[in-house]
């Protein structure tokens, strides 16, 4: 931007802005007049800022945009910060002092007045940021970040550095937001992709950690939410985005991240389920790849695996999986837990696809004991008998894969001639919690034979592998995991078939001519 005519600078910007965000006309005029005046009229500015406080003011978004333009201009004109350096020096100690001084100089220096108004504006913005209106929160965050940029550029004492104070206050506002997750969080995620913001945030976060996760779960969740947005992944690093020109040091940031995680884990004992789950999510998605010593997590993960059911256990399982991959830990109990995660209710959980995926990976190893895998195969085929259609297909394919991986399991479907001559009751114990003790290896997959009688032809065909030969290749479960029940219906309907076979016995009334079931149990007519 050129600084030839400062006064007229703001007006066109405001015009374009007005079009975008419905800035009311009178406000626009007011702002234009204010900006076009050579002297800063603090009263007008005060009037505009005061609008924030009005409860019923409808155009909050427009107002914020206007404020943004005004203060950007003022910052460029160097008419916000008082000349006195001391007043504005950041620092906790001098804050009170500075405020006192500020009041004194209010009357004399218009800049000082402006500064007061500026601070006031900031506090309002932060309030909006943590508020319950999504649009407001987003716009407030945007305005705040823009102001930070302008301030860093044009205010001398910043020397082009980040005004950390403001960012810290933004983070603080996000943490203390009324809702969880904070509404502005998705907007913040955009900024979090900028490497400088990333580094600074990690730098600031340890100081902002809520004192106790147990007492203030709301804040804890928000805090974790912020950490979750700070992605140190490869794509982000590769993009090389910066909010402002700045430097980024990955090693430093990783160190900072470790400090943040330390802060989290210290407060993690005895937290409620939701927070615990969030911790695990953050851990798996953001923290784990960058931890210095991930082996320390083992206990934490195992505890969460054993103490909780459902999603938390699953997340822990995933964590353990990555530890197994990278750190070579072994923990045999995992399989027992995994085994017990397969129960009829699982089909109605959201994370069942993830469970299938993980189980598939866990059971990939060919070095697992056969009786363990047999128990899995047996349990899965049992479950297929009670599951919705799409899961039945997945389970059958899964069992098929297991049989392919572990050739010893063929005895489940190919008993020796001597064994197949004797009739036995199923030796598999359904209620046993330990998969090794279920006796599944002595059993046989009768469930598959039963599944061949499934009403849906896809399932029946899938189960046919028992009587035919096993396929040569393993099935790829990935595609199946995405399938929904309704997809099966759609696929079925799409099959173009002209063979509409009709019944050959004419019904004389509501009932079928023979084998009618409905009228046996219903007295309808």
């Amino acid at each position, binding site marked *: 931007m050129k600084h030839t005519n400062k006064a007229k600078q703001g007006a066109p910007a405001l015009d374009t802005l007005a079009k975008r965000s419905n800035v009311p006309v009178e406000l626009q005029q007011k702002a234009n007049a204010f900006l076009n005046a050579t002297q800063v009229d603090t009263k007008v500015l005060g009037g505009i800022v005061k609008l924030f406080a009005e409860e019923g003011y409808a155009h909050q978004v427009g107002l914020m945009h206007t404020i943004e333009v005004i203060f950007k201009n003022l910052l460029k004109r160097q008419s916000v910060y008082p000349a006195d350096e001391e007043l504005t020096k950041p620092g906790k100690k001098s804050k009170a002092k500075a405020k006192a001084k500020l009041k004194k100089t209010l009357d004399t220096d218009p800049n000082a007045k402006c500064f007061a108004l500026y601070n006031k504006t900031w506090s309002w913005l932060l309030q909006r940021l943590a508020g319950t209106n999504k649009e407001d929160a987003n716009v407030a965050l945007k305005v705040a970040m823009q102001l930070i940029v302008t301030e860093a550029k044009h205010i001398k004492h910043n020397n082009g550095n980040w005004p950390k104070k403001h960012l810290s206050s933004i983070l603080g506002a996000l943490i203390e937001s009324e809702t969880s997750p904070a509404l502005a969080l998705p907007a913040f995620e955009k900024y979090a992709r900028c490497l400088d913001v990333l580094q600074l945030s990690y730098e600031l976060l340890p100081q902002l950690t809520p004192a106790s996760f147990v007492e203030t779960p709301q804040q804890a969740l928000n805090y974790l939410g912020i950490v979750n947005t700070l992605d140190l992944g490869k794509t982000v690093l590769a993009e090389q985005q910066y909010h402002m020109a700045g430097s980024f040091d990955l090693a430093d940031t990783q160190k900072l991240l470790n400090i943040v995680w330390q802060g989290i884990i210290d407060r993690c004992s005895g937290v409620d389920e939701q927070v615990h789950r969030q911790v695990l999510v953050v851990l798996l998605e953001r923290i784990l790849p960058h931890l210095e010593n991930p082996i320390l997590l083992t206990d934490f993960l195992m505890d969460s695996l054993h103490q909780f059911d459902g999603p938390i256990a699953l997340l822990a399982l995933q964590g353990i999986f990555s530890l197994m991959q990278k750190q070579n830990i072994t923990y045999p109990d995992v399989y027992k837990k995994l085994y017990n995660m397969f*129960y009829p*209710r699982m089909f109605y959980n959201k994370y069942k696809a993830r469970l299938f995926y993980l189980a598939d990976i866990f059971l990939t190893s060919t070095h697992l004991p056969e009786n363990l895998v047999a128990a899995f195969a047996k349990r899965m085929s*049992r479950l297929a008998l009670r599951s919705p259609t799409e899961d039945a297909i997945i389970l059958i394919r899964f069992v098929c894969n297991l049989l392919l991986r572990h050739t010893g399991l063929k005895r489940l*479907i190919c*008993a020796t001639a001597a064994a197949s001559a004797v009739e036995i009751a199923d030796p598999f114990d359904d209620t046993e919690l330990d998969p090794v003790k279920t006796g599944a290896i002595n059993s046989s997959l009768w469930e598959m*034979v039963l599944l061949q009688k499934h009403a849906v032809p896809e399932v029946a065909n899938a189960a046919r592998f028992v009587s035919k030969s096993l396929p040569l290749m393993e099935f790829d479960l990935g595609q199946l995991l995405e399938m929904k029940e309704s997809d099966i219906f759609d696929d079925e*309907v799409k099959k173009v078939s002209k063979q509409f076979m009709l019944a050959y016995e004419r019904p004389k*009334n509501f009932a079928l001519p023979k084998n009618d*079931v409905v009228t*046996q149990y219903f007295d309808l007519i």
Partner: protein
Amino acid sequence: MGFKTKKSNADAVYSKKSVKSSNPFDSATAQNAKRVNPFDVHVNKEKFKILGRICKHDRGMPGVSRAKALQKRTQTLGKQYAVKDKSNKFVDHRIGKHLSGDQLTESVMNARFLSEKLSQIRASNKAEKFNLNDDELLTHRGQTLEEIEQYRDERSDDEDEENDRLDAEFTSAAHFGGDGDKPQDRQTAIEEMISEQKRRKNEIAKDKDEVYDLTEKLDANYKQLLGLVNTATEDEQREKPPPDAYDKLLKEMIFEPRGSVTDKLIKPEELAKQEAARLEKLENERLRRMKADGEEQETNVQVPHRSADDLDDGYFVAGEEDDDDTLAYDLEGNLGTHLSQKKQADENGADDTEDDDDDEGEEEEEEEESDSEVDNMSDLKVSESESEDEQAAAPQANKPKAKTPKAQPVASMDTSIPFTIKMPKTYEDFTQLLSKYTATQQATVVERIIKCNDPKLDGVNREHVVKLFAFLLQYIKDMFEDASEQDIVSHFQLVSLLMPHLYDLSHLNPERMSNTLLDVLKEKYGDYRKNQKVYPSLETLIYFKIVSNLYSTSDFHHPVATPTYIFMQHILSRARVRTRQDIAMGLFIVSIALEFGASSKRLLPGVFNFLQGVVHMAIPKKQGQDQLEIVPPFERDGPFSKLLAISASKTSKALPTQQMQAADLVTHTITEEFKVRALDTALRLIKHCMEQLVGEHVGAGCLATPFLALFERLSLEPYAEHVHQHYAEAKEALERLATQKMKPLAPPDRKPKALRLLEPRFEVVYDDKRRPKMSKQKEERAKLLHKIKREKKGAIREIRRDTAFVQDLKLKQQLESDKERHEKVKRIYQEASMQQGELNELARAKKRKKF
């Protein structure tokens, strides 16, 4: 060497001998075969006889072949030479000008004739346009047909030719001198002979004329005689002797019917037989469809020993056949075989035929057979009555059923309905039309619309019936969409009346109708998908029932039934159960699913989950007790987990047995009666499932065990006696399945693999020709080159001969012209010398005068 040749000679002799001895007529030539002049034959002497070499040129006929070649040349080259340097040409434009000899068939000649005629007509068309009498004269061998007619003699002329020859008497007399009595001179003898011959001819001609006249007369009189002849023969017939056995048999054989009547009036029993056969065929087809491809190959089936050499050609060893009934479920669900039943019937029939051998016996046998078929059907009927026996626990159901068929004929007699009803154009018209009538009349109206719009009557009706089907579906939807407790029963009655008509409609155009129904189902599924947790509206269930009634739901894969199955499974596994309506609808769907699988025995997991849920809801849950495992959509605890639980009271104990009511499908509040009713129905359905649906399946135990855990917690105290009974029955069935013992799975015995049969490898024939070994391509090429060389040689030779021939022709011409010239010169010389002679003579005379 000498020894060798001797031996080979001996061999040759021996072989000649042996050939001769085998057939003495071998060397004999046929009488009519062309004999070859031995001087024409030229034999190429062969120095050595080489085995395996076929020699074509061992003998030839140079004269003949040369003559042939010459002839060919004169016809081709000679002709060309003749017309050489000549501009005029004779062009043959006739049809088939290239054909000759045998190729000129009748049709070609006819075509030639026709075209010739046409061209003639074209030429004379203008002149003879108005000439009506232009009948062309047809000729045969140059004579007009008319002329031939004129001279035609009725009398056949073959006789006189025969007698043209000299007879024996004459020849003996004339040729061999005769009896020498009258020594006559030759002259008189010949004259006598000629006169004698003439006289004889005359006599014969006269005789013939006489005979001809007489036959003419006879023919004229014959017609008058005819009347007399007829009467006489009749009399004679009467006097005929009584026919003997042979005659009888002959007559029988003559008059025996040779073909069967094509459209005989069919007897009712035959009709029944046909119907039974049709049903059996359809049933077999259905069974085939029911099985997935390759499903027969089940595990654990003991296959009899099969050899590797078994060709699988369906050949059975005699002993095996008896046991070879393929196991199949009959309609009732009993294990049995069609084969065995048939065989029984056959045996019955066989017994009967042994008993009586008369002609009537055949008829009886037929009847017997048809009886056995009827038996088959009655078997089915028995099964129905059996299933009714099962219903007997609830006798109320049968009464209203019995009423409806009675009401129907009355309605069809109703004269207030017009007999022909036009197909309404819009749905509004249709509803308006129906709204005028009562339920039974509505059914009649629909029936008449179908009758009037049968696609066989008019092509447009094809659209009409489809539309009618769609209207009916819409009508059903409108009926059930907001049915209330009061009118639900009447709605069901109406649907019940419409059902046969829906069936008829669907048979008129299965594809279109099914697509219509499928579209409706798709739409319903789309609606349901928007909110999976809520049961769909009642009409969806009615559509399910329609699918069940109209389609062959036992198919392994069916374009309508399979999506319906999936839909039902989806509802049962996802929709929350909270109200009386939900429970009733769930049970309704469960029973439809059982109906679908009644003969195919296919199972839907949702059915079992739902029944478990219903039982679970009937268990009163106390605080502190551990929760029972139950699958969503049912809840483990909370108010909805004990919807059907009741506390003991006198009223509940005194409740009579009851089926589910139509009203249950529309009301929300749960009454005590309903609780008992629902549990009771669930128990009976469990028994039904366990016994009829999965009873025969291997591994059904794992379906039964979850039920048993629930059954243990179900306290029966507050329930009436019939619930106790049903509980006990269901539990018994469950326990039986749970303790079922099974054989571990083993793949079926595969047919042993036969050893690979190898083609025998033959050595290449050894021909002792030492050629360089070449690749196949090269060899081929060499062969071709050789052929070309030979052909070239041949061609050169031919050309040489051609030139020789032409030279010959030229020479001949030259010689001829020379000869001609010589003669001319000679003549000229002659004339000249004569002239000279005369001149000389004149000159000499002059000289003489001088002297």
